[in-house]
């Protein structure tokens, strides 16, 4: 990373980021971000950007959005003091309970916000991609609520390991299209959703599910997900009597993490820690830890860190959790790493599975495999910093992971 940013440039960009001035007018977070798309999509992105500028912070949009979040999606979500984990780890652990949000993960915050925006833009149809199926379910639910037709692209590999979510999407009225090209996971699903959008850029709205993609998506998704961090910050002050020492979230594309982190950026005392999927090792293809092992490049519309080979071909990834199994990462995370405001670490498949086990037994909460990576990071942090006050973004619930858990944790028990 040092090659990308000189020290004085890092300092300047840190100040810009803390002042809330990023992305800039060109959709850049320092060197990262931008808008690398086929020409056919340029007018569609221009229109989306105008819509974002006009409505996202307008009073009537915010009123509708707040009403849907509170009355339909079940916000605010609880902040839970994790007594069992606190005792076990010798720390003070708090869980921000996105698993309690409607449809079972933070993805709903973004899906309902973008669906409201799509309505105002006059979209006739929504397309979305999904990895773990959580964004697909959230999009299907939001579209059902708002009366919009919804098509979800999902990799064939993911359809198998997240089968319950496929059925949920169908019940919610969405059409689920299996993607058998490429790696048959999230990356191929995004490729396919983009191809669909290219075919009808003006009538179709692309409801992107993470803080990735061309400008303005990383900004739009961050703004919609920041409700997580805003609520958590206020709840910590009330329930815990102060800010956490560290806030920890898992990072796939990075939407729950940027949503948790962003409202804490200016709290200098709060360390921010993102946990990527370490999979089964550090080799290319053995993990999905883009910030740990990647190099900068362009994929899916933005300049960011990528898992790629020496020739610029994007590499397949591995993670036990479908939602983290992606070879790119949101451009704002690439910047936050480069300027040192957020620290990124990895947790392995085994560490995540152990965290599912522990959290389920000690807290009575079955976390999503994605979220379990954040718990694994929290455990490690607690070992290194005994007694610290830790806020964990529990991004979703684990019911969707039953087939993976049957084949792993439950198989070991016989």
């Amino acid at each position, binding site marked *: 990373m040092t090659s990308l940013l000189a020290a004085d440039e890092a300092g300047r960009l840190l100040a810009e980021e803390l002042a809330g001035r990023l992305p800039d007018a060109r959709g850049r977070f320092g060197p990262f971000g931008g808008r690398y798309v086929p020409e056919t999509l340029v007018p569609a992105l221009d229109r989306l950007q105008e819509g974002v500028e006009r409505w996202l912070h307008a009073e009537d949009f915010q009123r509708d959005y707040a009403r849907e979040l509170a009355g339909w999606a079940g916000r605010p979500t609880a902040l839970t003091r994790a007594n069992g984990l606190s005792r076990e780890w010798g720390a003070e652990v708090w869980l921000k309970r996105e698993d309690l949000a409607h449809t079972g993960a933070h993805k709903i915050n973004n899906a309902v916000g973008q669906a409201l925006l799509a309505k105002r833009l006059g979209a006739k149809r929504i397309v979305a991609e999904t990895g773990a199926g959580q964004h697909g379910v959230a999009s299907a639910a939001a579209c059902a609520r708002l009366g919009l037709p919804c098509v979800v692209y999902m990799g064939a590999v993911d359809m198998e390991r997240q089968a319950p979510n496929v059925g949920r999407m169908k019940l919610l009225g969405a059409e689920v299209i299996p993607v058998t090209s490429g790696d048959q996971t999230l990356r191929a699903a995004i490729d396919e959703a983009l191809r669909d959008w290219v075919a009808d850029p003006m009538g179709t709205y692309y409801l992107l599910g993470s803080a990735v993609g061309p400008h303005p998506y990383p900004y739009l998704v961050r703004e919609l997900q920041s409700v997580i961090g805003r609520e958590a910050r206020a709840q910590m002050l009330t329930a815990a009597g102060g800010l956490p020492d560290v806030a920890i979230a898992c990072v796939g594309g990075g939407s729950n993490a940027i949503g948790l982190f962003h409202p804490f950026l200016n709290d200098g005392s709060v360390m921010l820690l993102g946990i990527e999927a370490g999979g089964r090792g550090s080799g290319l293809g053995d993990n999905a830890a883009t910030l740990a092992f990647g190099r900068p490049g362009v994929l899916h519309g933005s300049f960011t860190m990528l898992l790629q080979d020496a020739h610029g071909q*994007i590499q397949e990834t591995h993670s036990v959790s479908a939602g983290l199994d992606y070879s790119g990462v949101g451009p704002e995370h690439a910047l936050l790493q480069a300027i040192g405001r957020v620290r990124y670490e990895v947790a392995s498949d085994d560490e995540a599975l152990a965290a599912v086990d522990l959290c389920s037994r000690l807290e009575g909460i079955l976390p999503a495999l994605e979220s379990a990576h954040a718990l694994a990071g929290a455990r490690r942090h607690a070992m290194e910093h005994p007694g610290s006050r830790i806020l964990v973004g529990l991004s979703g619930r684990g019911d969707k992971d039953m087939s993976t858990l049957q084949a792993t944790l439950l198989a070991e028990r016989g």
Partner: protein
Amino acid sequence: MLPRDSISEAIRNASAGGKPALVAFMTAGFPSRERFAADLLKVGEAADLIEIGLPFSDPMADGMTIQRSSRVALANGVTLDWMLAELMTLANRPRAPLLLMSYLNPLLAHGIGRLAADACAAGIAGFIVPDLPFEECAELRAALAAEGIALVQMVTPVTPAARLAMLARESEGFVYAVTMTGTTGRDVAVPDAVLDYLDRVGSTAAVPVCAGFGIRHAAQVARLAGHADGVIVGSALVEVLERDGDPAEFLRSLRSI
């Protein structure tokens, strides 16, 4: 003559008789690396301009055919370095100017700094980068300009008028006028609206205009005559190479009406 001017000139010469010039697209190293040099020559017997596609793992603007050819070429071990070396050591070169079509990331991995000189040495006269909109292209465009290499801009039927005029003005070598919204490969009719759109592109372009995406039949080419200076044939030609047909014969058949 600068490399980029050789592109415009080849199109103008070929279309002087009233029929559009033929721009052929083929994926480098597909169906095999061994056949590439020979296929290039065969295509060059009938094509006025040749686009060589560098395969990419995530070809988001491409339909099924070019997705498939890209996947096979990558499995065959095709890289930019291999392709450049192959072009530098050709025993016989096609007379048609060569363009490189690539998504941005493999070019970034090669390094924009040395890309232009390497491409020039391999005899590449122009670049088409489908995921690089004009606003993001300054660095690559300047690097290529230093060697006289063209960076082709694309326009589409949904491009607003002011932007379309700007892109047509800024494009080098030729303007790539996409005939439809969608990915490559689908068969398209050529409605009157598309002809009007091509006329609008032509009226502001400083260089010839070539129409591409979905061109497969002589009837389409005949309808485009007078509205486009050239037609770009991609998926249909890749399919001919895939089934071991005669690419020159297929290309000639497109100008038969």
